[in-house]
């Protein structure tokens, strides 16, 4: 599935490339095999997981274990494990489909993600032969389940501030310290634990459930994802054999952050799976609930909520599959047999870290809005635990907190842009020349808007960097505006290009796709101009600011569409269908 062979594609390059000039993978191009595997995940979720929704949420850990084991029987736990260790080593695109389906039960998908992702992957990427042979086949089958223990009471976002220490004593490591918020801790067999050797050299270790001196605390009482196990744990002179060191001493940060980066884009996919559920229940309810003599899906403001939900889903999908297309080309083309395969794969992941962070924040915040609006559409009933939105509202909240808080991810995006622009791989320009018109067709105006937005973002970011240099990152508000602009541009462009591809292919839902892309551009474009101006306001004063504002006029050419008309067309279609209509499985 080589969607991206052009050498020009690298993290952030979308900011410079004219819209449509870069290859972009879309879910409409999925292979039959990928769809078949996605369908297995769907059958598993619909047949085994969702019927147990209530029991899972009551924190029936034995049930979660059993379901994971069942998933293992189907192969769903071995997607990213090399074939040599009983995994399937599937491409990342197929993996995304699976995650989207799993996402429909929020708690279970967190258990699944912690096991297959942050729990298992450190061993896949950094384990030695013996460690891989010992652990991976059992992790692939679900006989053993895994967890990842990085966070500590005093070391959250600042994970390197870890106080857990490891000391070599003969042929054993002795661990002391504590960890916090560890997903799957209640039932995991294998823990990847980060600790500082001699209190200095950050490193990773494999700890097993029954190791002496390893204590797991009681369950946390959480706001949401109540069916996933989250516990603190303590190491009190915990002795583990010397060969449980994972990777090299002092290279723990590479493991910790490399693995988290892989987790980020996945989180987005899960969010989108449940977003579709949210839209479905909201469509049903608003089509049944009547007030003032008509069902509430006749009211313009409710229709706007419905249309925006569908729009965000479309945008998230477009962005997710585009990103995974790049990451997959980079990572999956490197075979595990190659020397240094793990290193090369992680470098590819690093390259698209910015886009992965964009997926994470955009998708998690889109789901937040969708859950919130779903509550709103249900009115008072949305506030009742008897109806679905209440749980959606609680469950979705975690996505903005873990796998790097959204603040940390915004800073990652900003710092990548700033660094790349300083080393000339991303030469941002203050270009105020007229933009050529981008042809005709239903998306011409939207494309023009994306190009204008790129100019706005480039101008403001370049101007801010001229003034502050790399110190711009220290102005977090300003830096976040740069990250925000880049993210929304990436989102808009991904949606517009996908809609255009669908139109070219005469896709069944191309008219809807065009409307979804147009509505999103219509809503988003003004925000980008505002962010650009506010960023300039952060760094410029007096005449320089006046000049910049005058220059910005060159980009202010987007004349809004009548959004309510687009909304209405979208609402008609999704109401008739009773669900988000664009299916790709």
């Amino acid at each position, binding site marked *: 599935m080589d969607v991206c062979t052009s050498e020009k594609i690298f993290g952030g390059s979308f900011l410079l490339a004219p819209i449509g000039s870069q290859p972009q993978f879309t879910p409409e191009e999925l292979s039959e*095999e990928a769809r*078949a595997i996605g369908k*297995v995940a769907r*059958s598993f979720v619909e*047949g085994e997981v969702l019927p147990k929704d209530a029991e899972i949420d009551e924190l029936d850990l034995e049930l979660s274990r059993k379901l994971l084991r069942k998933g293992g029987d*189907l*192969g769903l736990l071995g997607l990213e494990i090399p074939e040599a260790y009983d995994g*399937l080593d*599937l491409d990342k695109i197929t993996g995304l489909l699976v995650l989207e389906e799993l996402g429909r039960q929020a708690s279970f998908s967190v258990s699944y993600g912690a096991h297959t992702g942050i729990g298992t992957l450190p061993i896949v990427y950094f384990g030695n032969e013996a460690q891989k042979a010992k652990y991976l086949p059992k992790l692939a089958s679900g006989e053993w389940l895994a967890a990842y223990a990085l966070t500590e009471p005093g070391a959250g976002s600042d994970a390197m501030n870890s106080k857990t220490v490891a000391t070599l004593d003969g042929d054993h490591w002795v661990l002391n310290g504590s960890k916090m918020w560890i997903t799957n801790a209640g039932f995991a067999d294998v823990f990847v634990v980060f600790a500082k050797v001699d209190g200095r050299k950050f490193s990773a270790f494999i700890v097993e459930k029954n190791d002496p001196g390893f204590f797991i605390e009681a369950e946390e009482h959480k706001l949401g994802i109540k069916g996933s196990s989250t516990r603190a744990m303590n190491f009190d002179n915990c002795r583990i054999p010397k060969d449980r060191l994972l990777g090299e001493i002092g290279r723990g940060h590479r493991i910790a952050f490399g693995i988290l980066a892989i987790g980020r884009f996945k989180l987005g996919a899960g969010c989108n799976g449940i977003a579709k559920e949210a839209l479905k229940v909201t469509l049903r309810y608003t089509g049944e609930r009547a007030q003032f003599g008509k069902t509430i899906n006749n009211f313009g403001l409710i229709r706007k909520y419905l249309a925006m939900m569908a729009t965000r889903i479309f945008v998230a999908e477009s962005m997710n599959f585009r990103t995974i297309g790049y990451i997959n080309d980079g990572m999956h083309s490197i075979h595990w047999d190659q020397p240094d395969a793990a290193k090369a794969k992680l470098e590819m992941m690093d390259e698209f870290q910015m886009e992965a962070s964009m997926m994470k924040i955009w998708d998690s915040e889109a789901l937040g809005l969708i859950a919130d609006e779903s509550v709103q559409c249900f009115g008072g009933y949305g506030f009742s635990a008897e109806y679905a939105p209440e749980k959606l509202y609680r469950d979705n909240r975690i996505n903005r907190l873990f796998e790097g808080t959204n603040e940390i991810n915004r800073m990652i995006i900003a710092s990548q842009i700033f660094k790349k622009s300083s080393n000339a791989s991303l030469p941002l320009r203050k270009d105020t020349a007229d933009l050529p018109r981008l042809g005709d067709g239903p998306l011409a105006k939207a494309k023009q808007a994306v190009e204008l937005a790129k100019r706005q973002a480039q101008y403001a970011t370049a101007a801010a960097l001229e003034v502050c240099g790399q110190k711009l990152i220290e102005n977090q508000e300003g830096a976040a505006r740069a990250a925000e602009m880049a993210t929304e541009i990436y989102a808009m462009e991904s949606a517009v290009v996908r809609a255009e591809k669908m139109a070219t292919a005469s896709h069944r839902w191309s008219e809807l796709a065009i409307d979804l892309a147009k509505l999103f551009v219509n809503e988003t474009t003004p925000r980008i101009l505002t962010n650009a101006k506010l960023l300039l306001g952060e760094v410029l004063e007096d005449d320089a600011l006046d000049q910049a504002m005058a220059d910005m006029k060159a980009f202010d050419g987007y004349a809004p569409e009548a959004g309510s008309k687009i909304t209405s067309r979208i609402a008609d279609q999704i109401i008739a269908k009773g669900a988000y209509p664009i*299916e790709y499985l």
Partner: protein
Amino acid sequence: MKILVALKQVPDTETKIKVAADGRSLDPIDVKWITNPYDENAMEEALRIKEAQGAEVVAVSVGGERTREMLRNALALGADSAVLIRALETGDPLSVARHLAAYAQGKGFDLLLLGHMGFGGDNGAVGPMLAELLGLAQATVVTRLELGEGCFRAEREAEGGTEVIEGSLPAVITTQRGLNEPRYPTLKGIIGAKKKPLEELEGTATEAAISISAIALPPARPEGRKLEGNAAAQAAALLQLLREEAKVI
């Protein structure tokens, strides 16, 4: 042991059925096609026999291009090979049975398994017709199947009880839900399916014995009406409506 499993694609139960412009076929737009659920029981039974005593399982379908996906799914589940007999789906069971019979003739199948009917079409005709065309024993709507040396014992639900049928192989068995719990394909199965043979045959043009001249959706249910007043008044109003409007008493 050599087993033929016949499979059909039917619209997903969640599909909102629309009648096509010709008034006699389904509007294919937005229809999601799935394997006929009763055929899944047939497939599962074949796989269990294969696992228990060894068998070669051939999945066969009569249909068009989109049928390939279903057959590949059968291969992913564990069928050894698949055959697509290309023919127009006319809705005529006899023509399907003739295609299947023509294929199966002389190939040494010991057992031919089919769902007892196609979900939605509900004819329940292909299995019995196939048995007749091949001159084989048959048991229909089977909920339990045991195989012996050259013979079978099948249980089927009959009105008010269970009927037990014994016969000799080769035989045609049509399967009912409850016979077994169909499995999901595994990811390994899906990946392995690519390497298994999916043969394509041109169906012989047989003359259709019947044709569908029209299909119609049930009339839309009229809106309900709420009766006002206290319980006695409501009961009286209801009685009156049942007598005079619905004319059921």
